[in-house]
C-alpha cells in the first residue's frame, strides 16, 4: 500500500463522502459474499439496488452453509470443538452485537448436518477443489494463480502442500519439490544439533536466558487447544523457537512468536493424522515424521517472519509502524469512532500491539486461524500492509458498540474481543471488508491523506 503514511494534500473528502464510501463498502461486502465463488479480488461489482446489511440473515445462512460444505475432514472436528467452546461461556450480550451474527452463530451450532441441503454450494465447492487440483498438477506451479485461489480459503487437506508453496519453502517445480524438502529437513536437523542439542556450558548467558524464556512460554502457548498441551509438541516448539532465535540474532526470541508456530504445527500434523484434532494420537507417529513436521514448521516460520524483519527487533519498530497506520486508516474510514477513541484517550498501541505481534491469533478462536492464514500466506510480501486493513476491519466490526464505551470499557473490550462464538462467516466478513478498503484506499493514496 503506497498511501500508508499519508502525504499528498488530499482530495478534500468531506465526511459525507466518507460515509457514502463506508456504506458502499458494506454493500459491496455483501454483494461479494452473496456471490461467493470469488477469488475475492475480481468481484468489485457495485450493486445498483440498495442492500441493507442489517437484513442479511438469509444471505448469511447461505454463506455459512456453503462454508461448511467447503470444509472437509478435520473441519468437522472444529465445528464440534466450537460447540463446546460456546457452551462453556460467553454472555448473551456478546452475541447481540449484530443481527447477522445471531443468525449465523445459531446456524453454525447446528453441526455439520445441515450441509446436505445446499447442492449449489457443493458444486461450487468441487469446482474450487478442481481449480486447486489443476493448479497443483502443473509441472511448475504458477504461484500467482495459486495465491489468487488461496486468498479465499484453501481446502484443509490441501493446506500443508499449498502453504509450503505459498511461503516459498517448497519448490514450485514438481520434479524438484521432494528433493528440496528432503534437503531442507536435513538442514534443520543439523541446525538443531548444532544449536539446541548442546550443553548449557557452551551457551552464552543471553542464550541461556533465551532458552529459559522459551521454556517458560512453550507450555502456555495456545493453552486452550489440547494439541499444544502434548509434551512432545511442546518440545518440538521449543526446538523450533530456539533454533529460529539463534539464527535470527537481530530479534532473538520475542514472546508471541511462539503463537505464530501453532498454525503451522496444526496444519503439518494434520497431514499425518485423521479425525478430530482432539483425538490425534501424536505418539503413534514415527520420529522421522515428527522431525519432518518440525522442520516444515521451522522453515515456514522463518519464511513468514522474513517478511516482517523489524517486527521483533529492538522496540519493534515494524509493529509500531503498523499501529500508527491502523490509527490513520481508521481515521479515514470511520471518523466518529476515531474521534470517540481519541476523546477518551484510548491509544491504538493499547490493544493493537498484540494484534500485530501475534498476527491476530489471540483475537479469534483457533479453529478459524488456519483460514485466516490462507489469506495471510496468499498476500505474501504484502501481508504487513494488508494486516492493517484486516485489523481496521476487525476493529470496526464493533464500531457502534465502541461509540457507547468509555476508556476503560473500550480497553477491556478490545483486549478481549467477543469472538469466541465466531464462525467462518464473521471472519469472511472481516476479510472481505478489509479487501474492499484496501482496494479503495491503497489505490487512492489521497484517501489516506488528511
Amino acid at each position, binding site marked *: 500500500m503506497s498511501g500508508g503514511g499519508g502525504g499528498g494534500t488530499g482530495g478534500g473528502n468531506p465526511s459525507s463522502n466518507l460515509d457514502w464510501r463506508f456504506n458502499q463498502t458494506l454493500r459491496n461486502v455483501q454483494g461479494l459474499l452473496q456471490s461467493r465463488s470469488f477469488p475475492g479480488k475480481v468481484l468489485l461489482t457495485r450493486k445498483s439496488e440498495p442492500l441493507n446489511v442489517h437484513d442479511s440473515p438469509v444471505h448469511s445462512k447461505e454463506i455459512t452453509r456453503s462454508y461448511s460444505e467447503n470444509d472437509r475432514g478435520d473441519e468437522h472436528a472444529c465445528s464440534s470443538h466450537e460447540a463446546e467452546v460456546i457452551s462453556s461461556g460467553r454472555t448473551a450480550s456478546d452475541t447481540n452485537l449484530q443481527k447477522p451474527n445471531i443468525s449465523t452463530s445459531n446456524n453454525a451450532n447446528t453441526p455439520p448436518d445441515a450441509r446436505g441441503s445446499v447442492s449449489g454450494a457443493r458444486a461450487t465447492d468441487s469446482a474450487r477443489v478442481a481449480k486447486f487440483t489443476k493448479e497443483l498438477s502443473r509441472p511448475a506451479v504458477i504461484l500467482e494463480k495459486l495465491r489468487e485461489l488461496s486468498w479465499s480459503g484453501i481446502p484443509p487437506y490441501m493446506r500443508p502442500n499449498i502453504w509450503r508453496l505459498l511461503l516459498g519453502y517448497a519448490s514450485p517445480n514438481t520434479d524438484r519439490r521432494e528433493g528440496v524438502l528432503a534437503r531442507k529437513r536435513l538442514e534443520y536437523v543439523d541446525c538443531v544439533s548444532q544449536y539446541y542439542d548442546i550443553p548449557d556450558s557452551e551457551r552464552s548467558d543471553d542464550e541461556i536466558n533465551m532458552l529459559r*524464556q522459551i521454556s*517458560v*512460554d512453550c*507450555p*502456555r*502457548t*495456545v*493453552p486452550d487447544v489440547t494439541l499444544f*498441551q502434548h509434551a512432545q509438541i511442546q518440545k518440538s516448539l521449543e526446538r523450533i523457537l530456539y533454533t529460529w532465535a539463534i539464527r535470527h540474532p537481530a530479534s*532473538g526470541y*520475542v*514472546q*508471541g512468536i*511462539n*503463537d505464530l508456530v501453532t498454525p503451522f504445527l496444526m496444519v503439518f500434523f494434520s497431514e499425518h493424522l485423521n479425525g478430530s484434532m482432539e483425538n490425534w494420537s501424536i505418539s503413534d507417529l514415527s520420529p522421522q515424521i515428527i522431525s519432518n513436521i518440525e522442520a516444515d514448521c521451522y522453515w515456514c516460520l522463518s519464511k513468514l517472519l522474513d517478511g516482517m524483519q523489524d517486527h*521483533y527487533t*529492538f*522496540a*519493534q519498530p515494524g509493529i509500531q509502524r503498523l499501529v500508527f497506520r491502523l490509527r490513520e486508516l481508521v481515521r479515514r474510514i470511520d471518523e466518529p469512532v476515531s474521534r470517540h477513541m481519541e*476523546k*477518551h*484517550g*484510548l491509544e491504538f*498501541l*493499547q490493544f493493537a*500491539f*498484540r494484534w500485530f*505481534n*501475534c498476527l491476530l491469533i*489471540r483475537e479469534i478462536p483457533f479453529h478459524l486461524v488456519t483460514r485466516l492464514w490462507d489469506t495471510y500466506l496468499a498476500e505474501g510480501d504484502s501481508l504487513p500492509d494488508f494486516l492493517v486493513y484486516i485489523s481496521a476491519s476487525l476493529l470496526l466490526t464493533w464500531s457502534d458498540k465502541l461509540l457507547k464505551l*468509555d*476508556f*476503560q470499557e473500550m*480497553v*477491556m473490550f478490545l*483486549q478481549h474481543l467477543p469472538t469466541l462464538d465466531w464462525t467462518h462467516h464473521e471472519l469472511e466478513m472481516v476479510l472481505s471488508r478489509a479487501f474492499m478498503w484496501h482496494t479503495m484506499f491503497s489505490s487512492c493514496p489521497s484517501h489516506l491523506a488528511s
Partner: protein
Amino acid sequence: MAYRADEEYDYLFKVVLIGDSGVGKSNLLSRFARNEFSIESKSTIGVEFATRTVHVDDKVVKAQIWDTAGQERYRAITSAYYRGAVGALVVYDVTRHATFENVERWLKELRSHTDPSIVVMLVGNKADLRHLRAVSPEDAEVFAEKEKTFFMETSALESLNVENAFTEVLSQIYRVTSKKALDVGDDTAVLPKGQTINVGGKDDVSAVKKGGCCTT
C-alpha cells in the same frame, strides 16, 4: 458524575504490575480483578488492563491496573505505561531466585519513569510452592526495607494475600493523596477521559506530591 452508579468513585489510581516473565503477574491481576486463576495463562503481550473498585475508609477507590509483559524486549513498550502510575507491584517468583535478583533492575526502571512518591510493593508470588522455595521471606524483607518498599508474599493460586497486597498499595496511595487533599471526584472534566490519573508523571503536576492539579 458522568457514570452509572456502580461506576462512581472518589479516586482513580493507576497501578502497574511489573517483574520477570512467568512470575504470575497476570494471575495476580485476574485474581484481584475477577477472582480467577488459570494454570496455563498465555504470556502477556505488551500490556493488559483491568480495573477494580475498593473501599478505603469511607471512600471509593477505583484502581486501573496495567499488567505488563515481563520479557526484556517489551520494556520499550511497557515503560510507556509507567508514566502516571501512582502505585506499583514489583513481582518475583519465590521459587526462582533470578527473578528476585532482577527486582533491583525493575525498581530502577520504574523509578526512572515515575514520581519518587510512587507507592511500591515488593511481591513474592507462588508462596504456595513451599517445597520449591528459593527466596526466603527474611531476605526479601531486608531488601524491601533497604529499597523502602512494602513487602508481601502472595499466592495467586491459593488466593493468599492477593487482596491484601493490592488494597494495601491502594490505601497507601490514598493516604498520600488525601493528605494533599486532591479530590478527583470534584472534577468531572478530568474523569471521563479515563486515563487521567496522571498524578505522577514527570511533566505533570503530581497529585501525590504537590496536589492541586485540578486547579489548573
